[in-house]
Structures are given as C-alpha cells and as structure tokens.
C-alpha cells in the first residue's frame, strides 16, 4: 500500500498531532514494552482537547515489536472528556539497524502535523536523543526539549511547561509547527488495556531503509557499573595524605558571627541568600 493512504492529515479545524513512538526495553527484565517517555508523550497528546492524534513508528515489523507497539493502542481515551485516541498506529517498516530519519521526515512532510511529540531518547540502540533535533533541522521547525505539560495551543502558538532540574518549571511559548520532546517529569502514562490493544489497527507501510554504516563498527557491550570517584587528595607527604584521609570535614574559610544580635545575623544570612539568588523576589 502506498503511504499516503495510511497517513491521513488532520481535518483543517482540528490540531494535528503526531506522536513518534518507539519500542522500549524494561530496565530490569529486558523485555520489550512501550517506551516510558513515548507513552508519556502520547498521554500528553491525549490531554490536549480537540486534537487529532496520529501514532507513528519507524522500525522493524516483527511479532515482538508488534506486541510492544500495541501497548500504545491500549491507551484508550475517554471520548466524553474530549480525548482523542489514535485509531491506528502506522509502522513505517525499516531494516534492522537502519537510519530511520529519512523515512520519518518523509512521513511527517506528508502528514503535516502542527505538533510532533516524542520522548527524549530511545530505550534501545544508540539512544543518543538526536532524532528529534535532526527532524527539527531537516524540517526547519523549532524544537523544545524536556516538556512536562502542554498548557494551551491557540493561534499557531503552543504554551508549554518545560521541566528543569530541581523540580522547577519554565513556561515557554513556541510557534507551530514544532517538535516537542517529553521529559520523565510529565504525568505518567495510563495503563494499557488488553482488549483495545488487540483490536487496535496496526498499518504497515514499506519505505526504503538507509543502513547506518558508522554504527556497524562500534563495539557494544552490556554496561558495567562505573566506580564512583573517590576523594581526590593531592598531598605530597604521607602526613598530609593521612590527615586528609582521617580528618573530618574542615571549614573552608567560613565566616563565623559570634555575639551579634539576631537582626545582624539575619541580615548576614539574607545577604548570602540574596547573593545566591534563592530568595523569592
């Protein structure tokens, strides 16, 4: 079947969203599953009211992968609350170890979604997290990484909440069409229901695969645990080394205020907090 039949663009009055999904790997059992961040991305797409969502996957089409991909189809939205479940998942078939970028670029050019959602990096293979950035560069779209929430989409501008380290959030607005990668801080994906997962449509479209030659010569081994770095001691004499190993934490030129009134002490503390920029203002 030609791909233009499989991938239908969203109706003009509804926001077209494409969610790029991949096959994940359970960190403990090593079994294939729906990838965690991709499932969160689909969950985020479901939370946008009045959207038309398409699920896209580029990769091998075998029984094990199909089982994992059907996990996404089992995430059924509640239609009365305006959630829009993708009717089917389009698999763009690629050879093992192929570079899926050209196939995905072609599919997205045909689909012309306004918002592309995906996880930050794959759970199998190289997992470099480069794919969304390369897609953005090839399509010429802006990319926002590590998003936890889509606040609103209106007039071709999406307002997003970006997850920062330390539990902080930053509000960004981006002009559509755009690519948005979803952080693990986004709301967790709903469980996958077995029946809808079995019934869901999985449309397969063939596309030319481009082999990834550079990757063929890499050596890939199971990760071994890296030792934590010990305290670096640059002492030259045995006495200094012993002192450094045996000593409790020493004050590094700390300031001590003794015999001051609480107000003066509070002022000193406040000056330090202000200098560090942690006080609300």
């Amino acid at each position, binding site marked *: 079947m030609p791909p233009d039949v499989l991938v239908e663009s969203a109706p003009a009055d509804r926001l077209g969203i494409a969610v790029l999904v991949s096959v994940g790997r359970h960190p403990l059992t090593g079994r294939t599953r729906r990838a965690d961040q991709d499932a969160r991305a689909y969950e985020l797409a479901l939370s946008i009211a009045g959207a038309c969502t398409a699920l896209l996957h580029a990769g091998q089409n075998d029984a094990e992968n199909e089982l994992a991909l059907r996990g996404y189809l089992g995430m059924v939205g509640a239609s009365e609350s305006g959630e829009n479940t993708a009717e089917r998942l389009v698999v763009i078939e690629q050879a093992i170890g192929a570079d899926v970028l050209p196939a995905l670029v072609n599919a997205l050019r045909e689909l012309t979604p306004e918002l592309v959602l995906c996880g930050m990096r794959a759970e199998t293979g190289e997992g470099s997290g480069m794919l969304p950035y390369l897609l953005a560069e090839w399509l010429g779209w802006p990319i926002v990484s590590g998003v936890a929430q889509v606040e609103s989409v209106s007039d071709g501008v999406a307002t997003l909440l970006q997850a920062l380290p330390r539990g902080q959030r930053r509000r960004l607005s981006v002009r559509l069409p755009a690519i948005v990668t979803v952080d693990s801080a986004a709301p967790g994906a709903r469980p996958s229901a077995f029946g809808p997962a079995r019934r869901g449509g999985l449309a397969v479209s063939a596309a030319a695969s481009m082999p990834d030659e550079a990757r063929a010569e890499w050596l890939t081994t199971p990760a071994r645990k890296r030792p934590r770095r010990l305290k670096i001691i640059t002492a030259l004499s045995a006495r200094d080394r012993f002192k450094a190993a045996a000593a409790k*934490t020493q004050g590094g030129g700390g300031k001590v205020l003794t015999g*001051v009134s609480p107000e003066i002490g509070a002022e000193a503390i406040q000056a330090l907090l202000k200098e560090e920029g*942690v006080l609300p203002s």
Partner: protein
Amino acid sequence: MHNGTDPLPRRDSRKERIARNRLHPEHDAVLAEMLGTSRVGPSLWAGPNGLARRNPHRVGFSGPNGIKRIDRSGAQIDTSLNLRTERQAVVADRRTTVEIETPAFLIAVVPDLPGGRLSAHDRDLLGLARQLADADPAVPGAVLAIVFGAIREDGFGTAGVDRLLHSLIHSADQSPGLGASSNTQCRPEARLAVLADVERELLPCHWLLPDSPMGGADLGRRLAARLSERPATQVWQINQDADGKRCNGLGAAGSTDINRPLSRLVLALAECAEPVAMTRHAARPMTLPAPLSRMPGRIQDLGAVAVDPATVALDEAEFILAAGRGVSDWAGFHNAAAVLGATEGASRVAVDDGFMARDRQVGASGTWVTARVYLAVGISGAIQHLQGIKSCDKVVSINLDPDCDMNKRADLAVIGDADEILAALVALQQRIEEKADAA
C-alpha cells in the same frame, strides 16, 4: 652553674630534676639557664670537626600527654615556638602557570555555569578538554570556553581555560531584576547562533559539552544537528588506542556501553575526567572577529513558574531550610520556610521527636540532598548528617554552640538562638516584600 670564680662546681639537684622533667612548668626556663642560652640549643648542628652532631633529647616535641612525638615528615609542630598559626597561613600554591601563546588547535567547551559558576560537571569536562589539548606536548592545543550571560566564576584559569569567550547575548533585551537568573534563561536559538559563529570563525578541533539536563544536553544536540556532526553522547571516558582516539559512552538508556571512534562533538557525562589540579592557565578573554549574528527566536521564554517548594522532592530541592534540636518554635519554622520559599528538611532528632515527617530527614539514613543552599537551623552536624549534605554548595548554620561541626562545614555560621534569628530573618524578608509591594 659554670661559674669561673667558684672553685668547686655545685650541683642544684632541684634544677637538675626540673631539667629532667619535661612536664615541669619551669622546664624550659631551667634548661635555658643551664645551657647558658636564651633558647634551648638546636637538635642538629655541625661539630668542631665538621661532623653533624645531634641532640636526641631535642628531637621531636611533647605530645598532649607529655609523651615525646617525633614527626619525620619535616612538618614538625613545635608547641613551644607557637608556630601553628604561621604554618597554617603559609599554604604553598603548587600550581604551575601554563601560557599557550599560539595554540595549534582549539578545543571548544561550553560549560553549563548553573548560577554563574562552574559546576563539578563543568570542571570534569574542562579536565577532559585538557586531556585532548595536552595529548601531544609538541603541538599544544588551547581550551576555549564559551560562556553566556552573567558569570560569577573567577576560577576559569585554575579550571584549565586558556581562552574565554564571553557572549552577552542576554544583556541586550533582558528585563531588569533578572540578574541572577539571566544565564538560566532559555534562549537556545540565540546561543546556537553564537556557537555557529564560533565554528565558522575559529573552527575548533573538538566541541565538548556536558550531557546534563541543565542545558548542555539540549544545546549540544542542537549544535550537532546544525553542524551535521554525529555526536558521541553520554561519554564517560576517552582513551588513546593504536588506531586513534576512541571514546566510551552509554547507550540504550544506560544499559549498554558503546566503544566508538572519538567524534568531533562530544557530550560527556559527569566524572568523565579528573578536573585540572596542578596547573593554572591564562583564561585570556577573546572576542570573535565578526559581530555576533542575531536571529529572532521562535521559542519565547515566559519566565519561571512558581513551584510550591513544599512539593519539591528533598533530593531535588535547590534551597533547603533544615531544622534540628535547636528549634523549639515549630510554627515559626514552617512559617519561615514558606516566607523564604525553601523546602523543609530535618535532622534525625527532629524526625524522631515527631516534629517532622520521616521523608524530610536529611543524612545517611534519610535523603542525600543536592541543594545549592542549605540553611541548617539548630543542627550541630553529626557525621551522618554532614554526609547527607556533602554535595551542597553553600551551607549556612544557625547554632548556639560555636564549636559544633556544622559551623566548621558552614560558609556562614551565626552563633545565637535559632528561633530568634529565624524570626528576625522572616521579619526582614517580610519588610522587603512589603516594600516591593508598595513600590
């Protein structure tokens, strides 16, 4: 004693006894009198025939319990000389200064600089850059650091930076009052334009960026896509092989190790190399020959969103207000945390006594926190607690006991009653907020 006029030398058995007794309060004075010098003689001197003579009784010093201690490291502490303070003042700086006038190539590093300072991750990355730059001593390369926004770091030279390119892309259209947070502002497209300019004008041999959620991971991948370079991501080691440099990185969500030839653009993890310790570099400021290009961003930063600090996980919190046994006014403490916008933490005692929840405990059996600022109120600093705050940047301590271990760890220690100082701090902050509201 050695009086020339006295025909018969007399012995003072009392003074001889004192001279034998190192612990006697008059020991030094009597010894000096007996030997006829103001100070007791040296332990080592040249004899009449040029032989080295040694007085074994003068070697070493008396320990705290009167037991003789001999320190052979050459760093002897003579308590009678009271040299302690002088010795501590003279801490030799052993770093050698390195100047690279005409570098053969450039290694470009883009540190994160959270809060305007080099993080430990940045220092490791600069250590990695030095490994690449100093690989061949005959053709030394230079490390170029490209930094954005307001910086508060003055140790770029000791961290291994030869050239410093400071881009002020944020200063032009930055709203006032954002001084501290300006370099955390999200302007990835403007930053990318600067890096593309650097690539065009200087053509660095390698690009190194931290693979960190602070911004390096995002900027590095943007740069890789723009330069059409395939980056080596999550790199934790670079080593020299017979057929060139190779690097080790993580793949597949950290479950595999990938060994591959070193690419031009490297996104490295923390602890990828040892930070620079023995050299000091020039950190010479430089500018780009061409003016920095500008481009309107399609991504607009609408500012940070207020997050309730009480809901932030303790190990993620940036500013922690922690209470210990020294706190008695608990309502005041919770109020202070709300006013200061801090996440609450507690020592084991406060948790055991039921004043704080178990998930708020900081330390060995609780949470190891990574806060940038840790304000310890009435915590004396048991070793288990100090372990938990090891990776905190700045520690402030409020305590009644001036000698407690927390005060030794703290960058600022205020000695006084915890409740009173906390109340004063809250009053001060509220006054400032009122002023800001009125204005």
